């Protein structure tokens, strides 16, 4: 597939973007949650560190892959944006379902009724994935013409 690089670039940028927004807004500005805080504080900090480092590395890698796709001439902007949304949404959905609920690593916020937060979080994630998938599909159609 000529534009697989476009897609990978978008997905990595999207994951990085979601991690960055999550880290900046919820961890550092609102102090709502850590990445992991059911265990000791130490483990929470270690996973926070991994999250942070992984996030910025995937943005850098994603943007370089984007530049490479453009250099090769197979770059489809619509597909890239679609992939960004899919990456960000999938990351958020994984965070919401697996991390929050299955592993119960942490909750979005503490000392409040949690389900409205969870529903908003996951619905938003699904919307991102769906919009991204639509962009990916239509971008593919256009590039084949």
């Amino acid at each position: 597939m000529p534009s697989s690089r476009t897609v990978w670039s978008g997905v990595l940028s999207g994951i990085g973007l979601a991690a960055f927004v999550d880290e900046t807004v919820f961890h550092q500005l609102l102090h709502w949650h850590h990445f992991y805080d059911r265990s000791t504080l130490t483990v929470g900090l270690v996973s926070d560190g991994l999250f942070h480092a992984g996030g910025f590395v995937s943005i850098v890698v994603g943007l370089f892959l984007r530049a490479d796709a453009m250099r090769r001439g197979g770059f489809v902007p619509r597909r890239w944006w679609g992939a960004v949304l899919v990456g960000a949404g999938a990351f958020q959905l994984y965070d919401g379902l697996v991390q929050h609920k299955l592993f119960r690593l942490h909750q979005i916020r503490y000392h409040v009724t949690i389900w409205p937060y969870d529903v908003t979080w996951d619905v938003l994630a699904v919307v991102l994935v769906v919009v991204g998938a639509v962009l990916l599909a239509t971008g593919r159609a256009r590039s084949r013409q």
Partner: protein
Amino acid sequence: MLELVPLGVSAVVLVAYVAGVRRLRRRGDRWAAARTRCVVAATCCVAVADLPPVGNHDDVFAVHVAQHLLTAMVAPLLLALSGPVTLALRAAPTAVRKRLLRLLRSRPVGVLASPAAAVVLDVGGLYVVYLTGLYRAMESHEVLHAAVHLHMFLAGCLLAWVVVGIDPVRRHGTTVKLGTLVVVGAGHDTLPKLMYAHDLPVGAGTALARHVGAQLLYYGGTAVELVVAVVVMAQWWRATGRRLAHSARRGTPTRRGVSKSRVLPRVGCTDDPSAAIGGPASFIGRRVRSRPSGPGRPLRVGVVVADPVSSTRRRPRRGGGTATGPTRH
């Protein structure tokens, strides 16, 4: 006096480096000026960290952290990018060159140059210094102080060589480098928070002084690691560009498994002669013009045939010997 050992080491490296470059120049070889600039900048970093007005205030914890950032992170990064081993292999007399090659291919160097060893020595060392009583001990023992500083400088060099090194020591793929960077980044992110949370290290002054130092370590470390990620990917970008230009000249893509058909720019990517000798810091933005522009239409290259000769992803290692994985000779 002993705390000047890292400065002494880098000054010796600088002098030898300049002598090597002069030797190459005299016999008509070229050596990228950017690499020389890197080694000069590295020595400047160490000098700023070790000499007054910074070096004589390292009892203030934030100053100590700033010294660490300069000597154990920034300076090793620049040194690794300056390629001193490559220079030595070109400029030194044959006997020295042979001995150096034998050393580079030896088992201890191979083990030391592995990502795991570099991570353990560097990040592990950092944890031992700040989370145990070592920091307080080194504040009162000059020899210990100098030894810890030297260890952090050398361990930083080891890590920098693993992640961004251009020397033929033991090269790793981009994925391994990025993985190493994420692990180091995570370790480096976690440490300041632990220090902040548990009021460590012991003996680093008031709580405020410790907190300022921990935050400087966190944000400074993140900044340097971001730069390292960009450097790793920029090196990948250059290497891929070279491969693309090569395959465009030959008319067949050299990487297998990339795509069934690819569109390659008609304008060559690396025909620019300065690219071949360009230093490590001169790559960013260089290949922008390789996008097809003007009347030229992109050249469509046909179906990829699996090319057994170029089935490895990396360039052949000039160091040979110690490398794992497939090599071609």
